[in-house]
């Protein structure tokens, strides 16, 4: 067994919500990063994978459990753990050279030594000639190269990458990823281990020796997949495709409670998160699913490619479709249901009516809002009431997200209407008139 570098033992983290109660973001995470490996953390947004990365970076302290670096307890950012950020986090007023030198300067390295080492890192990452440029003069890909050079110049043992390629376009991201992997394979990097946080499944499978899949609410490791393929790996290779399929299957496997593998979606509760899916996209995906070449059944990775949606977006949409009974998820495949077929063939007003019926039946939050409106003599209720209710089970962003989805779906299904200006949810106007 390789030497462990970072060890986490039953790490937990909770954040204080607006009403003062604690919300668990991470719970009981056990994880060890060994020398010589690349590990990818995969999970939907809000599953706590970024929180875990930040705990390892020493940026936020864990509430429970132990964090050890080389057997020592970790209380803050360590010198030999460097990080690459999603938004690059370059200092826009410093030149490329100065940005790369930042960490060395902070350690008090002499100017000549600093310049020499920065120069070497800049050359390694392919930025020669840009030393004097300001970050704003560079394209996104070049900026992230600066971000990587800034981390590498410190010769860190561990390199943490927080969605490092997700702000780049696909082509640039792939190129940068390949360059990093080539450096890693050639042994030119001083780094002994890398941890990559991502929500791009292909990226994770292409890079990592191990893929950890995160479950949300609260965040914990749901599954671990070893990737025993030699690098460089070909995206189109059958073993890579099979792995990607496998990961998709794991990620769409519903909200499994710990100790229980749920293939079918568990029954949604009133205070649960709702998928971040807008109606137009859901309809779009459903229509693509019906057409050639899928004809009602599709491999999720293929569907992602075809619809040009990111993994994250497609996962939200597919779970939304499954939730409403318009499609079914089965080991990384999505199949349209008879109801879904009926939906695609219907005209606009029929679609809306059908959609309304489905959300009332399957989304407890929407049914609950409707119930409240019908009971209220004025037929309207402030949105904040429901937001407060959701905050008992969800954190601030998730609560707002769930309510936003509920309002959009409710509006489209003509279940209720919402006035943004005064923040009031009310029954559709024509129904109100009828009642009076």
């Amino acid at each position: 067994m390789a030497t462990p570098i970072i060890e986490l033992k039953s790490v937990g983290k909770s954040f204080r919500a607006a009403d003062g109660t604690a919300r668990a973001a991470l719970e009981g995470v056990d994880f060890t990063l060994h020398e010589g490996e690349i590990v990818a953390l995969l999970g939907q947004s809000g599953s706590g994978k970024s929180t875990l990365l930040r705990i390892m970076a020493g940026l936020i302290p864990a509430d429970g459990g132990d964090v050890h670096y080389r057997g020592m307890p970790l209380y803050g950012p360590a010198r030999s753990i460097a990080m690459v950020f999603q938004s690059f986090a370059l200092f826009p007023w410093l030149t490329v050279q100065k940005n790369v030198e930042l960490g060395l300067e902070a350690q008090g390295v002499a100017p000549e030594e600093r310049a020499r080492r920065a120069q070497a890192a800049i050359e390694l990452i392919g930025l020669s000639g840009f030393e004097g440029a300001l970050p704003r003069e560079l394209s996104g890909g070049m900026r992230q190269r600066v971000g990587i050079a800034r981390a590498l110049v410190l010769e860190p043992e561990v390199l943490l990458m927080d969605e490092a390629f997700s702000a780049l376009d696909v082509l640039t991201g792939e190129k940068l990823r390949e360059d990093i992997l080539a450096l890693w394979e050639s042994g030119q990097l001083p780094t002994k281990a890398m941890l990559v946080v991502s929500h791009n499944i292909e990226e994770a499978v292409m890079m990592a020796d191990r893929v950890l899949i995160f479950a949300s609410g609260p965040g914990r490791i749901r599954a671990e997949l070893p990737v025993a393929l030699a690098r460089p790996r070909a995206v189109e290779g059958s073993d890579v495709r099979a792995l990607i399929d496998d990961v998709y299957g794991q990620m769409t496997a519903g909200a499994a409670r710990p100790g229980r593998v749920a293939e079918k979606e568990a029954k949604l509760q009133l205070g649960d998160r709702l998928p971040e899916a807008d109606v137009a996209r859901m309809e779009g995906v459903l229509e693509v699913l019906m057409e050639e070449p899928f004809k009602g059944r599709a491999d999720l990775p293929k569907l992602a490619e075809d619809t040009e949606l990111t993994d994250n977006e497609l996962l939200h949409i597919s779970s939304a479709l499954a939730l409403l009974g318009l499609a079914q998820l089965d080991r990384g495949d999505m199949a349209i249901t008879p109801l879904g077929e009926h939906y695609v063939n219907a005209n606009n007003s029929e679609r809306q009516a059908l959609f309304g019926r489905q959300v009332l039946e399957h989304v407890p939050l929407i049914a609950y809002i409707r119930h409240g409106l019908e009971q209220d003599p004025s037929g309207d209720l402030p949105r904040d009431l429901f937001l407060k209710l959701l905050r008992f089970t969800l954190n601030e962003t998730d609560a707002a997200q769930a309510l936003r989805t509920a309002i959009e779906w409710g509006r489209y299904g003509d279940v209720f209407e919402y006035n943004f200006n005064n923040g009031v949810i009310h029954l559709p106007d024509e129904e109100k008139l009828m009642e009076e």
Partner: protein
Amino acid sequence: MSENKQFFPRPVIEAGGNRWDWALLPLVLALLVLLAYGAQQMARPFQLGEVIPLSLDPSNLPYYLLRTTLRMFIALAASMLFSCLFAAIAAKYRSAEKVMVPLLDILQSIPILGFLSITVSGFIALFPGNLLGVECAAIFAIFTSQAWNMAFSAYQGFRTVPAELMEAAQVFQLSGWQRFWRLELPFAIPGLLWNMMMSMSGGWFFVVASEAISVSNQNIKLPGIGSYIALAIEARDLSAIGWAIGAMLVGVLLYDQLFFRPLLAWADKFRFEETGSDTAQASWLLTWLRRTEKTQGLVAGFARLLERSFSLFRRSYDGTSIRSRPALPSALPERIWDAVIAAAVFYACWALFHFIHSEVGWSEAARVVVLGLYTLSRVIILIFLAALIWIPIGVWIGLNPRLAERVQAVAQFLAAFPANLMFPVAVVVIVKYHLNPDIWLSPLMILGTQWYLLFNVIAGASTIPTELRYAAKNFGLTGWLKWRRYLLPAIFPSFVTGAITATGGSWNASIVAEYVSWGDTTLQAHGIGSYIAEMTAIGDFPRIALGIGVMSVFVMGFNHFVWRRLYRLAENRLHF
């Protein structure tokens, strides 16, 4: 050839410099001589009661301008230092922040002249037998017109540093000192500079009052443009006022060209949006300085010094050290601190009650509140009228990009120009036509601050997305509908920003505008501004304090209940 060099003194060989150096040399020398002379004059002996000779001869104006400029500079430097310290402390210590930020809110709403009347005797006592004491009082008054909003903007800047940049600073082990210079200050600089320019206008406006100090029947006039104007007003000399206006124009122009333009152009690199934008400021002086070897050497020297300080003040341990271990969080000190604050507030309330009860009387306090209401109604009506005039004009200008650029610069310049120079003209007119001062003095309050409305509206109108403009044209929106559905909502956020600045300035200006003199003629409008001005002239401290206190309450209440809400409305709903 090269070996021979060692026989000559190094400066002769390597003095070098390019043609830009030679051109800059006389400028630098002249500047140094002027500064030395002005500074020497500031610290000369002075006895209380002594009259400093001043004359209305226009040939003295350059010298007066120099003295005034020097004061402004010192005040500006002090404000800068204060802002940085304030922001660094308030952003770092939560317990300090709890007191400091509300305190700043209050200080911001205290009329500038209030500070002068309260602090002048203290400063004079600080340097007995020297003019420096009076100078300090004047500089402090200018400082108070600049420091608060600069400090606020710096604090905002420090607090809003993007989270990822903060995390990067932590991961790369920057110490507090390094973070301040490398991250927080650079991030805050654009806002700080913008507020500095705004403050400068305020400084010019109050230079008259701060140089001609009349307090407790002492009448001290420091040499400067402000005193020159005061003297001209006493002597009813309109042509001298004309000269003063001219000198002031030159002063504002010089400040703009030699100080703010280069600074703004330099600060362009601190803009945070990472995409390049073409709205960069240009400055001939900065270009010149950047091409000059000697100044570049100076800058590099400063940078080296800073970097050396970085290696001195660095973090000596990282997150694996026992020293990073977080102390057990304890709520007790925070509770105690809260209790101390609460006790202080209770004591202050009691002291206030006692003060009003024994020193001024409740009826006086009620009267001042009524006077405050008068001034409040003036401010509201004037802002409304100004909006009625400037919104259509501003929108029209803003929709013509080429015109907007030029007018924008002029409006900024006008905002910096002290409007109180126009006051004597108003007095002459009001006296001549026997007009009611309660009505006709009011416009003076907004004379200087209306420009903020104008250039914010212009800015708002010029940022309306082109597609929206085409859409409005395409749908044939005309008349009132066009204003209600398209133009007014589009400019609303920037209008609110402008109106906040304009009302703040108007409250401040009311002290000067409701109580105007021209020789022996003094016109007075009923209002809290004239109350404060009158009490300052008599030297009645309890009543000055009462007036200032009530005005601060009005300003804060107005900000809290009106502007903050409108601002939030604009932020939430009416933006692109």
